[in-house]
């Protein structure tokens, strides 16, 4: 995975795939470059566009795309789906998120140290579901549990092959950063 470069407050991201309900095509979307002053070069489908953010918070955004003003409201957003109202029109956008991958890498999934048995949470959050039982054998990359943080769901994956030992969390419970989720022996 390439190193993330920080550009302004929003990082230049990976190329992600977006789909709008009722529209058959899928579109690539990505922030290519931060130009400073809340201006960005973004890619939508094959085109590069200029975008200036006028204001933004968790509920909505006002921006100028090339020469045209737009206003969008974020009604509900998870990492994989978003309900928005764009200039008065309700839309549903789903995206193929790479977030799971990022958390996976950061939790040690990318390294090859098999010695560590504890699978730790890299983020604080609520336990949405647990995908394994004690005694199950798992492969590196299998989903152990799903956490929810800031309205986003993140799958936590096994960092190595092994057998699930003690599961330290309960569905519906919450975990702090660095809490041990499960032992994989």
């Amino acid at each position: 995975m390439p190193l993330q470069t920080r550009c302004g407050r929003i990082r230049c991201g990976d190329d992600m795939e977006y789909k709008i309900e009722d529209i058959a095509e899928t579109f690539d979307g990505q922030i290519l470059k931060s130009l400073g002053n809340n201006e960005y070069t973004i890619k939508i489908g094959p085109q590069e566009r200029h975008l200036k953010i006028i204001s933004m918070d968790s509920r909505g955004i006002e921006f100028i795309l090339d020469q045209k003003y737009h206003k969008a409201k974020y009604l509900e957003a998870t990492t994989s789906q978003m309900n928005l109202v764009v200039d008065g029109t309700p839309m549903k956008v789903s995206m193929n998120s790479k977030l799971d991958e990022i958390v996976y890498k950061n939790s040690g999934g990318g390294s090859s140290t098999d010695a560590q048995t504890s699978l730790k949470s890299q983020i604080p959050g609520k336990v949405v579901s647990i995908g394994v039982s004690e005694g199950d054998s798992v492969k590196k990359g299998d989903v152990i549990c799903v956490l929810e943080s800031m309205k986003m769901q993140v799958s936590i994956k096994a960092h190595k092959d092994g057998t699930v030992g003690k599961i330290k969390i309960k569905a519906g419970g919450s975990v702090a950063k660095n809490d041990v989720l499960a032992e994989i022996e």
Partner: protein
Amino acid sequence: MIGKVLIANRGEIALRVIRTCKALGIKTVAVYSDEDYNSLHVKKADESYHIGKAAPKESYLNQEKIMEAILASGSDAVHPGYGFLSENSDFSKLCEDNKINFIGPSAVSMDLCGDKMRCKAAMFKAKVPTVPGSPDLVKNVDEATKIANEIGYPVLLKSVYGGGGRGIRLVNSDKELQEAYETVTGESIAAFGKSAILVEKFLEKIRHIEYQLARDKHGNAVHIFERECSIQRRNQKLIEQTPSPVVDQKTRDRIGEIAVKAAEAVDYTNLGTAEFLRADNGEFYFIEINARLQVEHPITELVSGLDLVKLQIDIANGEPIPFKQKDLKMNGYAIECRINAEDTFLDFAPSTGPVPDVTIPSGPGVRCDTYLYSGCTVSPFYDSLMAKLCTWGQTFDESRLRMLNALNDFYIQGVETSIPLYKTILKSDEYKNGSLSTDFLKRYGIIDRLTQDIKDDKLSHKDAALAAAVIHSEYFKSRAQSHASSNPLWKDKMW
């Protein structure tokens, strides 16, 4: 003289009445249920009285409670709005008994308007044409057949106790009528315990055209032109306009005179509406008088320049109507769209709940009567009408295009609305060229067109949606990564 009015209603019509009262220097009193503590009419009135629980029966229909509020507040008049107690002659009688000026017709006249058979008989006497059919209930199948042959097939066999498609049959011949007679009798008895059958001519591709009436206590009567209300769903009006595309000045005068005769036939006072069906051959048939201020009165105000609520109050005060029929001139074109909280795709099922954000359209020739404000709630206990959006133009097309623009500007967050449906209707060629009928939605497959319009609309907003989604997901990904890597630069706040 009326000095203080209690408005026995809620929502946009309560606000509408309050507005005119304030302009006339009349004090206003609102009433409200548990559900309406936070409603705009309570905030705008000079005083407000709580009258009970959310269910209409226990508040807005509770005559005793409302009368208590009238007396406690020292109001000398009551405006009933539309719906609720507006056409309840017991309530208007209760007001008469308590010497409270009820802004509307007398209890006697209201009763007559509400009784379809007696009203029809009165119209027959006054030579007001009604839908051809049996003058009264038919005694047996032979009498029904005889009348059907006089007025000509197809006819409807109707039980007066029917409704909702039960106890009603469309028949095309003597043979069909004889078969259906038994069925209708049976259905009516099964559902309502008794049968009483009428024969009525079946009219196809009908339009609903109504006349605004005003008649004072001195017997002066005028009509304030027609309104065409043909675009409906389940017999409820959605879009109204004036003038009607099929009413020229000659027809306006001719049917207007009949409408005035109808008001005189039932000794109607104050403002009311004579409803007509117009058959495809151009014939008009009287159906009923609505003994109240209509929902769609604003379009008449837009083309006449009159304040109809003021006219109601003046008439209630015993003043003569200050103009003659010949003084009234129609100016321009007006359209009303009833903005309902409903889901067009769920068979117009109501959609209720909090409305965190609203943008109300405005501009030249745009009027919006509404109870909405950012942070209000659309209650499941009452009517789904949230707003009446009206536009005026010098030409029909100017009013239509202003309406389309205003519909685009109208944003209501949190509930489904009929706005997208209206955009599809107003853009249609059939609407543009005035091919209206009460089955407009079905006849022209409007719902299918709406589905396509929604897809097209999404397509035209695609780039902005993707841009907003990209920024949002990158932003939140940045946050998640910051958490994941304990980025010390991260400050836990938004922009």
